[in-house]
């Protein structure tokens, strides 16, 4: 997972080692802030326009936590007939809601292959594209 380690490679082979080395610490760690259950969390990329009302745009990174309890109206990732979808879950009406008017709710039908995969706990917008090709 995402880790920034701000320590330069220093094998101690040449030169004089900086006396500050001992005091180098990891700077703020985004994992620690954004990820509640590391072994149950994965990151996906959003594709499509149906969740704009919840602030999720195409190309955003979604942090999906499988260990969270699922509450009504949570933004979740689910397996719907072999495809990962991101929707709001309406437990009472057994349907998947989009947050854009152009997309009607999807009512679960008999025979649908459906499992909730996890709760979208955070999403990340890339206001500038990544510098590095990923």
């Amino acid at each position, binding site marked *: 997972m995402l880790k920034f380690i701000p320590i330069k490679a220093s094998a101690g082979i040449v030169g004089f080692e900086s006396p500050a080395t001992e005091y180098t610490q990891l700077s703020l760690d985004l994992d620690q802030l954004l990820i509640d259950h590391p072994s149950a969390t*994965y990151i*996906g990329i959003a594709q499509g326009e149906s969740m704009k009302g919840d602030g999720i745009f195409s190309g955003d990174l979604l942090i999906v936590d499988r260990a969270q309890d699922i509450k009504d109206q949570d933004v979740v990732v689910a397996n719907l007939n072999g495809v990962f979808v991101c929707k709001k879950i309406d437990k009472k009406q057994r349907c998947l809601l989009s947050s854009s008017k152009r997309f009607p709710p999807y009512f679960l039908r008999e025979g649908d292959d459906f499992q909730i995969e996890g709760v979208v706990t955070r999403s990340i917008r890339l206001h500038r594209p990544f510098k590095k090709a990923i």
Partner: protein
Amino acid sequence: MFALCDANSMYASCEKVFDPSIRNKPVVVLTNNDGCICAACGIAKRMGVGKKFVPYFQVKKELEAAGVVIRSSNYELYADLSQRMMDTCARFAPDINVYSIDECFLNYGKEATAPQEGWDNLASTIRKTVWREVRLPICVGIGPTPTLAKVANHAAKNVSGFTGVAVLDNEDTRKHVLKQLAVTDVWGIGMRLGAKLNALGIHTAWELANRDPSQIRKAFSIIVENTVRELNGEVRHCWETVRVAKKEIYSTRSFGNRVTDYDELRAALAGHAETVSVKLRKQKSVTGSMTLFATNSPHDNGGYVRRSFFHRFTVPTNDTRNILNVIDSAMSQLFQSGVYYYKCGVGLMDLHEQGLFQYDLFNSSNDNPRLMACMDNINSRYGRSTVQMAAKGFEQRFSMKRAFLSPQYTTQWRDIPKIKC
């Protein structure tokens, strides 16, 4: 009590975690270079396809006709999901011992009393949690000894009446399960030992459990005696020995494209030599001898060529440089021009615990442990082959053929799963 958590068809199950489109399909995973079948999911097994170790080309048409999904081994993905599974299991016990990529022992202590919810419910909770949080199906077996935990796990998978969870905490269940278990399915009893036991009229685990341990020791070894005692509930495996240091270390691999070039074969062997050296140091051993081999394919028209070379070290070593040095003397024996090499490898045998070895009076070790430790540290911190021996070469033309490789969903940014909005 001890629990053994074991993933069902680990590799095939891993393939389904981030690809929901194949969850309800038969999936078969191939070994290195797509050579043989190494795992098949439950659906494939029930269809009777995906027998282990069958060469892929032999059953290619049959698998195609059955609509089986084929995948190359995606070790990056399996290693990450394995780590997640172990982290999740570890929450449920004071002590965990990771036994292999898909199984771990949980230790509750010898005289552990049942948890409030009962052993059965605890086992179910572990199983459900790993499914929910990692999306891997596992079986959980609980028993008073590591061997019985293994037995319970086997029962959880194979004996009717158990669905993914089995607890051997009373005499009736223990007897019921041991009677249905073939002696060859007992932990540590292989096919050869099993055949000898069969000859003595011991066919089931129950029959083995009822033999006199001291006689079994005389006829076989203390290891089999320990198994008998463990089957009867007496803990003999010391927690440390559940994970024994390997007695041999091998690194072998077939080439993606055939190798006909001297330097290329040499570089491939150097890569293997480096791999085994790192493993050797990791388990804190030194090696007394080394074997190297190179072969073409048994299916080649020109006939099978298999060449090997054996080397004994004057002083046992775990220094990559000493292990690499053997390659040059081996090459003249291994390499023959005109042979299309298909596979090569390096094995270390005659391993001793580092420090315990009786050194020779006249030959002193030229190992440089500090240099090796430095190399290992850099590589574990900044990734494999950050520093490496130049002999291995820097461009691996002989890297693996993985034609059906799935994305590395959790370890490469470009491969993270796409989610439709």
